[in-house]
Structures are given as C-alpha cells and as structure tokens.
C-alpha cells in the first residue's frame, strides 16, 4: 500500500472506541467463581421456579465434563472461569418512568433513548445492562396485538409454559462448551412471542451493555414466531474499554413455525481491545434458528466490527418442507482482533433453500476466518444452497481464511460455492484521489461498496449506523 493509505490504517489503530465509558452506578455483585452454590444463588436472586434451577444444574454438571473447543482458527488465551463474576445487577427499578438517571444517561449516550416519546421511529427496545434487563419499551401497544416482548426473567414468571416448551429446544445445553456454561449461569435477555397470523408492527430490539468490571455477560434470547407471523429483530452491543478481557457467552434460540418469517439483525460492536491487542471482549456466542414449520423463513444479518475474539456461527435448521435460511455477514477485524465466524445450514425438509453471503474485511494484524457448514440430510430432496464468501484485505500483515464444509447425503441437492479474495489496490485509491476523493473516503467508499449486499439487508436505521461503524472501525475519524 502507498504511504498515504498506510498512514490512515495506522491512524485507525489509534482511533478511540466511542462507547468505552463506564457508568458509575451502584451494582450488586455476587462473589467470583462458579459452582453449584453460585448457580443456586443466581436462581434464587431471580426467584426462579424449581424446574429452571434443575435445568441450570444439569447444564452446569454437563459443563464440568467439557473442554473449551479448540478447532477454531483462534488463539484464545487460557480463561480462568473461577475468576469471573457471573451476576452483576445495576440497582435500578424496572419501570421506564422511574429508571435511575445513570441508566437513562448511559443508554442515551449509546444513542438508545429509553423514553418512548423520544424514539423517532417505531423500534421497541429491551435494554440489558450486565446481568439484568433494565427497561423494555412499547410493551403495551405490542401487548394489544398479543405480542409478548419482555425480559427473559419476566417471561419465566409470566409465561412459564412457553419458556418451558421452547427453552433449550434449539440450542441444548449439551450443544457445546459455551452453550452449557450459558445454560448454567444465564442471567437475563429478551423473550419474544409473536402469535399466529400477527405481523409485528415495529422492529424489536435488544441492546446489550456490559458495564461492571470482571463480570461476564451471559444472556439468552428466545424468539418464537407462531404460524404465519412476522418479526424483525435487532441486536446491538457495546462495552467499556478495559485492559482485562471480558467474556460474553450468549445463546439465541429462534423457533419459526408454519409460513412464519423472522429476520434477525446484529450490529456487534463490543470493545475490540486497544491497538496492541490488550483488553476487549471474548464474544463466544451460539445462535441458532429452527425453521420447524412448512415454508418458514429465517434470515440472519450480522455486522461484526467489535470484540477481541469472535466465535460465532448463527445457524439454520431447515426441517420444515420448503423452509429457507439466509445468512448475510460482514465481519471486520483490525489490529489484533480475531474472528472465526460463519454459519451452518442444515437441510432436513424437502425443497429447502439456503443462501450464504459472507464478506470478511481484515486490516492491521488481525485474523479473519469464515467457517461454514452446508449439510443436506438423506431425506432432504431437492435442497439448494448458494454460498458466497469474499475476503477483502487492507494490509499485508492480516490474514483471511475460508473453511467451507459440505456434508451431502442426497443426490438431488444443488450446492454452489463461490469465493474471492481481493485487496484494495493502490491503483483504485489513486483513481479515487485523482477525482478529488481523499484516501480515507475512498477506502470507506470501496469497503461500503464491497459490503453493500449485506448492508442492504439491514433495516434502514441500522444500515446507516452500520455504514458509519464500518467507516469508523476502518478509517479513523477525519480531522
């Protein structure tokens, strides 16, 4: 790269993380470490029923038999699970009229106003700070349509049958190390139920914020879309800048019934660590949707710019006939960030379709891997998949890797895979410069052009946000 663009890439390594502030708020902690007593304590704090405690304990016992997965193309330093605080609750009242000033200010600073009258377009928000949900907006108008949108804790209290029926049905605690850990200690998260035939009139979103020190965040999201319903769901996340690494191990489970459709969008902007790779969030997340009903549809869209290490594979189980799964991803890594992310498309029903569009962007000394599985079961006649995995390199010191797996047991399936690797060339930058476009803007223009196919899948407000985020995480701000 020319000197000019190297300068800019250097500059972005020094770019401050905008959301790195800490809120000084009285927070209740439980002691560090994990054991059965800690799990009983968390369950007691949340006034949980016996069956949920049993679920947690089973998960915990299973977890103690597991080892951290090592197959990912990641270099994960050893994690001392006894050195983590598993529950931290900012002291606040769960009522948006009486939220403490600190909480309101925190979310205001993050651009997430929790006053309903101040939210311009129809987005309902569940705000989760550390281990608890601090506010959920627009609940009443949603309830009129029979839509349930509340914190996970409330769902356990008020809709135990639904939670009991679906909890762990898509991601079992036996699924993997981090799923077992989450199932044992999960604190809060969001619950969504869209009744039969209802089209959710606004975007639902959860905003996750880590605030407290030395704590892990282990939230759980459960979305159930009943027959012929539709919902678009958004997730955003940030954390303070700290020298220590913090663990985030979440589970998202989505159940999609007959002819229902769920769109799940994530803009992940956890603190990525500093330019020397110190600090940052470990984002080890299990997300999976089960297209159970006929002609059901799930679409995952993710823009991943944050986290020191990302281990994440939002997946689709396509068991309903004619169901379809989509995965659109932009993953940006810079400095010493590492990402191993992709998807699994499991075709079980007949005439199922899946589409994968993955766009990796690597800069600095980062490592960025796409890992994807397309599986076609023997009974899945006429399954179709199209995968496209592109990598864009912005430096000579970064790495981009692609690990596609295919596991095909039915001859009628059609599976296509395309992959490209490209670099922003000096010629392209000079061409832009010659037309009056400075290098920084030119990189932004090219990166956004490259990621356009995925960004276009995001809801409008989010797309603008994501575009800005791409510019910031890659370019540094102008002036």
């Amino acid at each position, binding site marked *: 790269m*020319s*000197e*000019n663009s190297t300068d800019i890439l250097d500059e972005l390594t020094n770019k401050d993380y905008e959301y790195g502030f800490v809120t000084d708020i009285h927070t209740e902690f439980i002691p560090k470490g994990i054991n059965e007593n800690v799990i009983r304590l968390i369950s007691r704090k949340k006034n949980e029923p016996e069956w949920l405690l049993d679920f947690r304990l089973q998960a915990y016992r299973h977890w103690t038999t597991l080892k951290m997965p090592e197959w990912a193309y990641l270099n994960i330093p050893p994690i001392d699970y006894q050195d983590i605080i598993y529950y931290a609750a900012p002291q606040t009242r769960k009522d948006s009229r009486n939220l403490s000033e600190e909480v309101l200010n925190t979310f205001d600073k993050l651009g997430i106003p929790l006053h309903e009258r101040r939210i311009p377009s129809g987005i309902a928000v569940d705000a989760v700070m550390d281990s608890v949900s601090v506010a959920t907006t627009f609940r009443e108008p949603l309830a009129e349509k029979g839509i349930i949108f509340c914190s996970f804790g409330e769902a356990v209290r008020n809709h135990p049958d639904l939670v009991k029926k679906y909890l762990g049905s898509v991601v079992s605690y036996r699924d993997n190390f981090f799923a077992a850990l989450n199932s044992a200690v999960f604190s809060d998260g969001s619950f969504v139920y869209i009744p039969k035939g209802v089209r959710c009139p606004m975007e639902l979103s959860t905003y996750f914020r880590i605030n407290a020190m030395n704590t892990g965040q282990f939230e759980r999201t459960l979305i159930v879309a009943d027959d012929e319903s539709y919902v678009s769901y958004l997730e955003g996340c940030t954390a303070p800048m700290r020298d220590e690494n913090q663990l985030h191990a979440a589970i998202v489970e989505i159940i999609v019934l007959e002819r229902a459709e769920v769109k799940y969008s994530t803009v992940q902007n956890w603190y990525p660590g500093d330019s020397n790779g110190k600090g940052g969030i470990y984002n080890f997340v299990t997300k999976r949707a089960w297209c159970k009903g006929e002609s059901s549809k799930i679409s995952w869209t993710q823009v991943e710019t944050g986290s020191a290490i990302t281990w994440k594979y939002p997946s689709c189980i396509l068991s309903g006939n004619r169901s379809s799964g989509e995965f659109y991803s932009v993953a940006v890594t810079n400095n010493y960030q590492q990402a191993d992310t992709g998807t699994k498309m499991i075709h079980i029903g007949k005439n199922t379709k899946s589409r994968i569009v993955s766009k990796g962007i690597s800069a600095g000394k980062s490592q960025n891997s796409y890992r994807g599985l397309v599986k076609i079961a023997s009974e899945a006649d006429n399954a179709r998949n199209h995968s496209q995995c592109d990598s864009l390199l912005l430096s000579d010191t970064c790495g981009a890797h692609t690990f596609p797996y295919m596991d095909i047991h039915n001859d009628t399936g059609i599976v296509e895979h395309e992959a490209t690797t*490209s670099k922003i*060339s*000096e*010629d*392209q930058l*000079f*061409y*832009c*410069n*010659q*037309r*009056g*476009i*400075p*290098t920084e*803007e030119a990189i932004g*223009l*090219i990166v*956004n*052009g*490259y*990621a*356009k196919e995925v960004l276009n899948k995001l809801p409008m407000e989010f797309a603008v946000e994501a575009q800005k985020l791409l510019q910031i995480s890659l370019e540094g701000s102008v002036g």
Partner: protein
Amino acid sequence: MLTIKNLHASITGKEILKGINLQINKGEVHAIMGPNGSGKSTLSEVLAGNPSFEVTKGSATFEGRDLLEMLPEERSCLGLFLSFQYPVEIPGVSMINFMRTAINEHRKRKKQEPLSAGDFLKFMREKQAVVEMDKSLVNRSVNEGFSGGEKKRNEIFQMAMLEPRLAILDETDSGLDIDALRIVANGVNKLKTPDNATIVITHYQRLLDYIKPDIVHVLYEGQIVKTGGPDLALELEEKGYDWLK
C-alpha cells in the same frame, strides 16, 4: 496555467523523465507525441500525483501553486483532470455514488454545499449527453465490465462532470474504433472553453484530426526534443520518430 521546469522523475529508482520543460496557457491545446517508453504516461501520472513515482528534481506550478507539494485530491479539486489510459475497475461502487462523492468533495473544498440528489441527477444527465453515454452505465460499478470504448467514454464523462481547468488525456484514442473516437473527440471539443486547457497524449495523428492542437511536442527518452505547430504531427506521421534521434 501550468509551468514545468526541468522536471525529473523516476520509478523504483529508474529515471524516466529527464528534464521536462513545458509552458501551457489557458485556451491552448497541446499534443504530446512520442514512441513507446518515451515517458508520456509517466509525465501525466507525475502531474496527477501518483505516489508510485518520485520527483527527483525540478518544479511544476499550476494555477500559481506548487503542484508537486499537493496531494492528488488537492490537484483534482484545483482543476487538474487525468483521463487514464487504463481506467481501473472498482467493484461494488456505482458510478453514480462515485461521481456524487467526487463532485461533493470538489464542492467541499470550494466551501460549497453538497449538491442535492435531484440537482446532481439533472447535472449528470446533461453531461451524459455530451459523450452520448448509455444511461445504464452510471448504475454499474465503476468501469466494471465496461468495454474498452465504454471506459474511455466514461473518462470523458467524468471530465465533463468535474469541469477541469486542465485536462490531460492519456492515449484516450487507444482501443477506440472510429465511431467511438469521433464521439469521444466531440465530447472533448464541446468541453473546450477559452479558460481551460488540454494536453492530448497520443501515438498517432488520427486523434489530432478531431482534436486540433495548437502546439505539438515530441517526447523522446524523457525529454521534449522538438516543439512545433500542427504540421509537426503530420510530419511525424509520415516520417516516424527515427529521424529525431
């Protein structure tokens, strides 16, 4: 408008330009001719500020400012335009978006407000007509999948949009059939005003049948070895370059 004095430039340590002197005034059309490897393209890239080339000696002033001190984008905004010999493809970036960004960067430097979407589209349609450019091209990614002729036409379209004070056309005729050549040359002629100037770099007399030069220079081994009127181009066409050695 442009004054070049004793300009030396090299790439990866190899000297290509060995003392260029050139004076260009507004309203003039200069043709620079010369055999392959004489430094014609290097001269245009150096004037536009391509960082791959290193200026080792000499000076260039443009519109009263030190050209060599400026970043390529500053030169562009001051009114220097290069029509590339090999325009690069930029996948994923639409021509519309690219041009709008460029125009607004120019406006920003002139402390003007960005053009509204409506005004921009209107302006763009006017300029497309100048080079008889297919309307669908602007929705495609910059130069991606364009034919050789479309790329050259696209360069002149961008020139029309940016309204430069000095346009350098680097072998704009190469790869063009006779119809495309006429359209491109007509476009250039339409954009001509008494206040701007053009440098036409070419191997052949052919383009100069359409774009009439006031002054013709012959570049040979990194130096301008001969300067004359339009007749010089005809003479070169007839005799080749060997007699100049």
